[in-house]
């Protein structure tokens, strides 16, 4: 049937997909298409009307839509075909993509390379097993943000926020600005999940308390949420009896983590890393299926969109080489997350050129020493004034310091 043949199909028109598409075009790859399920490209940025985007990349503070627009404008200038309102249903290992849309009907596309840029989704109430009743008024931060910023719908008047992820912090401020009362942000960990600047600008500036080592132990109400019961937790994250405190509220916002959205990756038989929830990739951002690449939040959840764009651009350069040569340099050297490091990307490297590692520490460290070891010897160590789990660390690794093919291990103390 009507099979569309392409050099490269990019799934997802958010920051990663757009950046990849633009860089591919700039590298001379003409025959590409971006598949985007929404009416407009831009991804989650479209609902992020707060500022702070682009500080690294553009040295100015942009809102989400403004940041997205910089890429969209370029994509339009470069005449990059955007199949909007089109949902990819399946990616096959042979790089056939099945998609549907109102306008184009049932689509079968095949490409020499596929870029997975589907982003991430939010962890839900059910996923973290919150107890209680199931009233209206319990929603994830992203859904709340979409209702308020895109749909012009006000979700409540009295809120508690569970989880101090960045979107939760942003929503604490957003709700306050719209006249709602935010009683507290509860965080089960002993440290905040979001960026320090968001703690300052979204909580401290508005006098919203951040209760560390706290969680929700009951949700009450039949129709609409009536109250939640919060409790302090011990070192094993179990509630401390007697520490319960009831908050009367009509809204509970959950900001309890993001999960790379890899359903399509699984249909292609791509191997995932249980720690990141994203694909296992080499330094070219190529997955376990040759010719299928992955970058951005679908690969691992980033702290800043600037790095999503950068990662996608690096990916695009590899894809361009892949399309030109039909293959990429092999990456036989494994990279492992050692003690103190929750994950490190990429999973394998070639050892023949400089790569930038992305990693996160398990716990706040001040100061922090990151060490890369190979065969028992230290090949690189770098000291940082501090390191937080919320902030991704980027560590350039020069080819010269890698010896042979034995695995590298990255640790943090």
């Amino acid at each position, binding site marked *: 049937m009507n099979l569309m043949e392409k050099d490269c199909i990019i799934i997802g028109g958010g920051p990663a997909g757009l950046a990849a598409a633009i860089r591919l075009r700039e590298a001379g790859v003409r025959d590409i298409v971006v598949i985007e399920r929404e009416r407009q490209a831009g991804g989650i940025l479209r609902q992020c009307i707060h500022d702070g985007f682009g500080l690294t990349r553009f040295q100015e503070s942009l809102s989400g839509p403004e940041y997205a627009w910089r890429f969209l404008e370029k994509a339009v200038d470069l005449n990059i075909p955007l199949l909007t309102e089109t949902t990819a249903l399946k990616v096959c290992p042979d790089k056939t993509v099945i998609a549907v849309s109102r306008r184009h009907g049932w689509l079968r596309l095949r490409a020499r390379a596929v870029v997975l840029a589907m982003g991430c989704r939010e962890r839900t109430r*059910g996923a973290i097993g919150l107890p209680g009743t199931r009233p209206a008024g319990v929603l994830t931060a992203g859904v709340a943000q*979409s209702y308020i910023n895109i749909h012009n719908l006000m979700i409540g008047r009295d809120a508690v926020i569970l989880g101090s992820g960045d979107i939760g912090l942003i929503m604490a401020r957003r709700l306050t600005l719209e006249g709602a009362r935010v009683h507290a942000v509860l965080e089960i960990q002993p440290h905040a999940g979001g960026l320090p600047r968001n703690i300052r600008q979204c909580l401290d500036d508005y006098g919203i308390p951040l209760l560390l080592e706290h969680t929700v132990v009951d949700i009450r109400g039949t129709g609409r949420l009536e109250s939640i019961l919060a409790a302090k937790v011990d070192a094993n994250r179990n509630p401390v009896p007697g520490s319960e405190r009831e908050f009367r509220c009509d809204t509970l916002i959950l900001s309890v983590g993001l999960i790379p959205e890899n359903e399509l990756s699984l249909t292609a038989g791509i191997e995932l890393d249980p720690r990141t929830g994203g694909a296992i990739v080499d330094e070219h951002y190529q997955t376990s299926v040759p010719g299928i690449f992955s970058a951005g939040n679908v690969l691992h959840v980033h702290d800043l969109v600037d790095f999503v764009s950068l990662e996608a651009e690096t990916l695009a350069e590899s894809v361009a080489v892949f399309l030109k040569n039909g293959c990429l340099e092999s990456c036989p050297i494994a990279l492992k997350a050692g003690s103190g490091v929750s994950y490190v990307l990429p999973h394998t490297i070639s050892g023949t050129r400089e790569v930038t590692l992305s990693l996160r520490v398990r716990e706040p460290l001040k100061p922090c020493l990151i060490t890369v070891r190979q065969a028992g010897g230290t090949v690189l160590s770098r000291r940082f004034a501090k390191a937080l789990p919320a902030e991704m660390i980027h560590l350039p690794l020069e080819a010269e310091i890698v010896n042979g093919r034995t695995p590298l291990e990255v640790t943090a103390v």
Partner: protein
Amino acid sequence: MECFDVLIIGGGVIGNAVARELMRYKLRLGLLEKEPDVGTGASGRNTGMLHAGFSYAPGSLRAKLCVEANAEFDRVARELDVPFRRTGKLVVGFTEEDRARLLHYKAIGEQNGVPGLEMIDRKRMDAIEPAAGGNFAMYSPSSGILNPFLYTIALAENAHANGAEYFLEHEVLDSRHEGRVRRVVTTRGDFLARWVINCAGLHSGRVSAMLGLPGHTIGGFKGEYFVLDKRAGEGVNIPIYPPPRPDGGFPTHATPTIDGNMLVGPNSLWTDDLTDYTVTRASLAELIEDGGKMFSRMKPEYFIRNFAGIRPKRMDPATRRPLDFLIETRDDAPGIVNLVGIESPGLTSALAVARMAVRLLATREPLEKNPLFTPLRKGILRFADQDETTRRRLIEENPDYGEIICRCECVTRAEILAAIRNPLEVATVNGVKNRTRAMMGRCQGGYCQTRITEMIMEECGKAPTEVLLGKPGSTLFTGRVRP
């Protein structure tokens, strides 16, 4: 005020089955339901099993009606166009003690007329389901799985299409004789009827008293569940039950749903509050521990949701021993058909229960056949279940099939619209969910809930403050952010 021939109190699976069976006759029938949708109580909060009937006391209504309704369910599922799979069931055993209990159930089942029960060895188990634990099992080929929401909705829609009138969000407050008819007082006005049928499920004891038949004690038997991701359900094709406990009940187990998820549960505890669907932290911990022993994929990465259901058990007020279903008409209570304590296997037995209620009514008043009655009903076509050729054709015929609204469950705009335009005029978010599976997947509506609420507002002409999640008062919005 117009007078109904029959008013049914309660829109669970029983009320709707009775309505559907009564529409075979020329009657003016109304159904009163306190919630904004049908099937929101015990009918929708269970394991979704079509039970075979091997664990109910021989001679009981539970046994008789379960076996009767089980036998006809393939035809019923076809008539009502509802998903159903006769999977069979394995009750596994490890020890000789287990074997004795399984043989006991087999004997009871055979007495009840359950077809095809057999004890099978490990070799046969491997042929049926290699993943099942245990050294031997009782195999029950007539057990199956169904979607309890869709079955209840289908019964309601079929009754409605045959002329039954539905009054949702009408909570019954009181009832009294008025000459030869009864007045039923609801939160939204009064109704008159010659017959009132109590199908109030969890509230059947209270409604019975309201109808002048006091003295029934209903105990709430609560069970909590985890819903697991479809990935956890891959390859699990048959419900596998652990060996029964010495008291005859089953410990926490893992059951595949007709949609491919897994349910882990239920635990079991008594509750006095028949409306308390709280899932407690302690119960969740218990389910994680007990469920983990039964099912290796009982892990947080597969958690989608948790919920509680309550079974209305009619109990002897003195001994508090559970009693059988009560389905009766009485000389001293003219115009009333009383159904009390219809709990598990109520979902399985619903149509047999309904026929019995109709027979009782017919012994007191001749019923005239409705020649226009049709037992057939069409459900909403599921795009996700169609083959490629059908999907292509659907999109060509109607572009709304080309717009995926729910990504996780692959539900299209066409299906969401069909659900919003449902014949019962249910306009809640959960109404759409239970009809289409949108928002039931792993992102729990993170992607699609916002557009579904927009579609509800647009289609039903509702203001933001009028949109309900499910229950009365479950408003989603306080208004617009900006005028």
